């Protein structure tokens, strides 16, 4: 934006705020320096663009259509424009300062610092106390800004999505109800139009651009929806017990997680660990290599053997290539 344009827009804001009654486009043309006095069409185009730019930064322009006048009148209603008086105690201001630092990236970080600046401009003191606590939330997923906007505007979206472990990417169309961060990952929850049911999507598995579908305001969030419990997938409780041999002096993490530990003979101990999914248990146990051996149950034992054979095969292949 050129300096001249910024000047014109600032004068336009002042003009529209100062006026008691709505001004016609022609009156504005006379009052605000920088509009073309000769070419009507050029003025109209410029005035339209200016109004749009003001609206984009959140300035509400009131349009009055008087049945007795041909041209609409414009003004900015002070009450709709101004930040209401907000008085914060020092401890309240410190909390806002802490909250404004939370967002780490682009869109929301800018929004938060913009908000802080407006509050400070409104007279709020937000001197940052030296806090022993620091909070950060990252929104590194490329899909985050588009989903935030869709949730804000209550608008349906469509995006390419790869389900966990899937080899293919499918296009999904979703009415988003919300976005939730859990355990450092972002999820969106909503009504999946293709499945005709509520679904949860992990943002990191969205494999391409998110586009909006239909009008803003078209999505209705069910009143009783609990976003978090939807994202907190029903992890099965650890109801099963595995018996595992551990070489003495190793497997410290495993021993720490164990519900029972017995000193054995021949340099080996035995521990009991609770689990739900044998594959998950097998991933952990396989990672501990030759220091552990699952004795029971057989399905967990088989799962470990399968993983180890898989690792041997893939890394062994490499050996053959050389």
């Amino acid at each position, binding site marked *: *934006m050129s300096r001249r344009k*910024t*000047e014109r*827009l*600032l004068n336009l*804001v*002042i003009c529209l*705020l100062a006026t008691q009654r709505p001004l016609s486009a022609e009156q504005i043309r006379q*009052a605000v*320096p920088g509009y073309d006095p000769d070419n009507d069409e050029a003025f109209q185009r410029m005035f339209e663009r200016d109004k749009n730019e003001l609206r984009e*930064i959140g*300035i509400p322009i009131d349009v009055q259509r008087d049945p007795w006048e041909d041209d609409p009148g414009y003004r900015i209603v002070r009450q709709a*424009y*101004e930040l209401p008086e*907000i*008085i*914060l*105690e020092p*401890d*309240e201001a410190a909390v*806002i300062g802490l909250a404004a630092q939370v967002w780490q990236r682009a869109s929301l970080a800018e*929004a*938060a610092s*913009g908000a802080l600046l*407006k*509050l*400070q401009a*409104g007279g709020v003191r937000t001197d940052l106390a030296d806090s*022993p*606590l*620091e*909070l950060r*939330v990252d929104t590194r997923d490329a899909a985050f800004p588009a989903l*935030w906007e869709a949730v804000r505007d209550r608008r349906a979206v469509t995006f390419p999505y790869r389900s*966990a472990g899937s080899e293919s990417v499918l296009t999904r169309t979703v009415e988003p109800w*919300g*976005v939730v*961060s859990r*355990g450092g990952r972002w999820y969106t929850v909503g009504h999946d139009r293709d499945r005709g049911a509520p679904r949860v999507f992990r943002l990191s598995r969205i494999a391409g651009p998110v586009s909006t579908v239909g009008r803003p305001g078209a999505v209705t969030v069910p009143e009783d929806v609990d976003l978090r419990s939807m994202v907190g997938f029903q992890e099965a409780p650890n109801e099963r017990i595995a018996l595992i041999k551990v070489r003495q002096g190793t497997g*410290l993490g*495993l021993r720490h997680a164990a519900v029972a530990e017995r000193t054995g003979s021949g340099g080996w101990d035995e521990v009991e660990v609770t689990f739900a999914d044998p594959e998950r248990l097998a991933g952990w146990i*396989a*990672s*501990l*290599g*030759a*220091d552990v*051996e699952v004795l029971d149950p057989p399905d967990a*034992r088989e799962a470990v053997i399968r*993983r*180890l*054979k*898989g*690792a*041997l095969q893939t*890394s062994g*292949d*490499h*050996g053959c290539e*050389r």
Partner: protein
Amino acid sequence: MSSDRLPRLLALVPYLMSHPGAQVPEVAQLFGLSEKQLVDDLQLVWMCGLPGHTPGDLIDVSWDGGEITIENAETIARPLKLGVDEASALLVALRMLDELPEFEGRDVLSRVIAKLEQAAGDGAAAVSSQVQVEVGAAPGAHSVITDATRRRRRLSLHYYVPGRDEITPREVDPMRVVVVDGRHYLEGWCYRAEAMRMFRLDRIVEVDVLDVAANPPAEAEPMDVTEGVFRPSDSDELVELEVTAAGRWVAEYYPCEEIVELGEGRLRVSLRARDQSWLVRLALRLGDSGRVLSPASLADRVAETAKAALANYDSVA
């Protein structure tokens, strides 16, 4: 940048009006500008004013001797109201603070949230309940650690390092508790590493507060966590893995230098690691859904370890 200029001016003018006698350097810093840029903004403001634009209509600004005074700007004396994104960004963060067990001052928080919601209108309140950051359950050690950080006491920790499957004792001077993406970390000077370290609270197996005042060396500076908590160093070994669709989680969980789609959900990822034994464990965990492409020494170690582990099972199989 220049498209942000009008919103900035609409905040700058009210700021100057509510802070008479503000100095050029401090205002420039607050608004993220150089002093020259700020003066340029002031010059622009000085050219604007009420219709008529006679000297009596224009905003009067001066910055003689670095002290800024502004007059005749009553029309834009109040800042623009908060936008939905602006208010929501703060509200979501405030609601997250509310979930932190170590956050003292829940009454302050509810007062702030109420004031902000009132200032922002319904739109922002609605959005901020639809965007939520869940804070992980605080591990047991948590209250002891926050308390010691506040009181600046040295801690004795037993810390689990999953990469090496070790529990190591350390003495740490706690400096801050950092919550990143809902997960708690203790940041402090570690006397074992003789460096600043981040400790995940849920991996602290045992903690004792020592009767010693924390006294970290002068070079102990809090780390910049803007780009994530764990950043591999350039001197760490670069490793290439190929994973199938079932192993794609590797690219989501660890910071990768490069991720290349190979089709059918397969990926080639490059990552750096300080410790090869961590990578051996990762490869074993992946089973046939991962393959080490390079270095060859790592592939050999994986094969060796897998063979040795399988030998445990041979006697019965």
